């Protein structure tokens, strides 16, 4: 299987990128930073190639589904989205220091996915409820949303750590300014919120088909709604009361914790739920 070889290379590349970003931040060598960016782009390309290879191989095996089902595919897809968001941020705001915090997360997700004995790497046949394009929209919006919220959470933690009056983002090798971190956090929440809205409503349609009603107060549905509500509070506060800074950073972290709970419930690690979209058990 080509995809497993390619997926095995990806964590090594992300580890290398993490080390390069760290060296860049510690020794402030511009060339190392540039190499780190190139390696991250290469890592993302290999990751994308692995994703496409797995997709094609699933068709060769007669199963034919977008590889975002099952714990292995979910974790690797989330890591890919995380790195894609990071690269977009790096290009947009021209800061590399953020990579020191995002790349290790992507690396750990990939290591867990590829090395954990609890995660099967096999391409498995999906039950009827997890087939079709409709579930692709549901699951892809889910993991793009998680990745966006994860980046927002990291930006919020850095915002809380970074002190006022520190070196602003003029120095590319240090952390971005608090204002930039706040802006990154907001933009990622905006993307994540749209994705989460798609996730919840597409889930409602599936719920109607499976259980006969749009809303079941199922554990996964409710935890996702709770995370959505927390982000809704944050966005309303930000738009109307011009909330920013510490309060939005704390809310962003809380919102991410709830979305993680929803993920863990969906993966069958926490609470009993009527559906496990990630593990494919219904």
């Amino acid at each position, binding site marked *: 299987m080509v995809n497993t070889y390619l997926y095995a290379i990806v964590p090594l590349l992300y580890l290398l990128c993490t080390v390069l970003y760290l060296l860049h931040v510690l020794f402030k060598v511009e060339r190392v930073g540039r190499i780190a960016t190139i390696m991250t782009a290469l890592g993302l390309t290999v990751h994308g190639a692995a994703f496409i290879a797995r997709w094609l191989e699933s068709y060769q*095996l007669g199963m034919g589904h977008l590889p975002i089902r099952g714990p292995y595919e979910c974790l690797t897809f989330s890591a890919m989205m995380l790195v894609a968001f990071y690269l977009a941020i790096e290009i947009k705001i021209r800061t590399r220091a953020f990579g020191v915090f995002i790349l290790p997360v992507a690396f750990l997700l990939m290591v867990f996915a590829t090395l954990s004995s609890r995660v099967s790497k096999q391409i498995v046949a999906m039950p009827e409820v997890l087939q079709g394009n409709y579930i692709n929209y549901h699951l892809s919006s889910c993991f793009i949303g998680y990745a966006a919220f994860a980046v927002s959470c990291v930006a919020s933690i850095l915002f809380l750590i970074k002190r006022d009056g520190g070196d602003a983002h003029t120095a590319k090798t240090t952390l971005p300014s608090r204002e930039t971190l706040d802006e990154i956090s907001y933009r990622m929440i905006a*993307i994540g919120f*749209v994705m989460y809205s798609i996730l919840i409503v597409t889930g409602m349609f599936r719920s109607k088909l499976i259980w006969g009603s749009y*809303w079941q*107060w199922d554990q996964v549905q409710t935890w996702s709604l*709770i995370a959505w509500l927390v982000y809704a509070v944050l966005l*309303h506060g930000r738009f109307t009361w011009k909330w920013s800074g510490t309060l939005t950073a704390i809310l962003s972290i809380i919102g991410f914790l709830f979305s993680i709970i929803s993920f863990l419930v969906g993966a069958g690690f926490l609470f009993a739920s009527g559906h496990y979209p990630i593990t494919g058990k219904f």
Partner: protein
Amino acid sequence: MLSKYILTDTDLKTALLSGFAILPAPMKKLIKCILNLSASINLTIILLSVATLIFILQIAQDKLVFYFPSWQWLSAAGKFDFYHSRGFFVLFALFCINLIGCTLKRLPRTIDVLKSSSKELDEARRTSLPICETVAVSDYQAARQTLLAMVAGYFKKTGIVREDGDSLHLFAEKGRYSHAGFYLAHLCLLLLALGTTLSATGFQYSFEVTKNQLLDPLVVRDAGRQEKALDFSLLCSDLKTTSYGESSKLKKHQSTLSIIKNGATVATQEVDFATPLHYNGIDIYQDRFSKTIPYAKIKIIAPDNQQSTHELKLGDSFAAGATGVRIRLTRLRPDGVQLKTLTLPETLWVAQNPVQFHQAQLQGYQVSLIEISQKESTTLKAIYDPGKGLIWYSFILMVAGFSICFFCSHQRMWARIERTGSGCSVTLAGAATKNAREVSELIMTIKNSMEYSQSREQR
């Protein structure tokens, strides 16, 4: 002609205000207070926070009590089903009222911004704008050209409002309709809620059908659990199971269904879990797996020698002649079946020899078993969902609304060039609903460019 019958905004406002004026002072105060509260963002945030907390307590009370034993009181609260209580209804109603209130409250401000009468940068406007820069230059024409080129480059149009020999007033904007995002998102949230409410008036009914069976007519149970015969028949002509490749893992269960109306086939389709057969607002889906189940063929002879046969699977029932008594098949063995009347708890084992019930209403009726056969059967479901279209379109518009809200910005820029003695003064001002930094950067770029040209000229 018609204009005298049309109520203008001013008339409406006057009428409402005069009606409001005759109310007693405490009533006025109360109405004002309610209106302000219903349109308050404080209420929005309180409602969202309260809902979040209640949902957490409802869903995680077991774990919370386990990890924090002092929270034992939550166990009692956990028995209370909030989702189906009046409290939930009140919370939901308040949320809808608040959504409408906030939307209406914001409307005049949005109209003001969109109808912004003065596109000229007068002093009152200049002081009210968050971004404002002034630069003094000597060459009017050069400043004019730089300004027009840079504004046209960013806003795709020059936007000259007024120009005479001594002054130029310019106004340019983009993302004018980004305000619609807020209304779209909020309206669609309400429509989503309305759609799910409408959906509750529909029905979802699962039923079993055997291969080649004609359900004439198709009988379902509606939202009130009442049996309802639909105005068409359903024929299941084939049942199919697909596996993944050569493995035995099941991929799909499919049924070939036909809708028959007035003796003619009006629609035929292969349905599966996600592909329904649509007819007359009703969607028929494949529900559960196909299987082979035993059927018993029962013959019943009335006292007047009228005969009827019924094919039943376990749990099915039929009416015995004109008596109105229903008889259900409760057990099935290779050599016989057990029947039970629904009115009285009388059971009867039936084999091939005719037997009789002892009930008075069934006196003279003889029941016998003709045969037991195996039939391929599957479960289908008929769904009538009047809210589906509304939910679907609201969802698409809601996502569009959120996207416009978060990613589009109404950016406006005003500029004024005035001759002053030997040179001229350029005033640049701008505002943006989001991403004000972009407008600020544009204004600074124009200013720097003019200052750079000025310094080059002086050299």
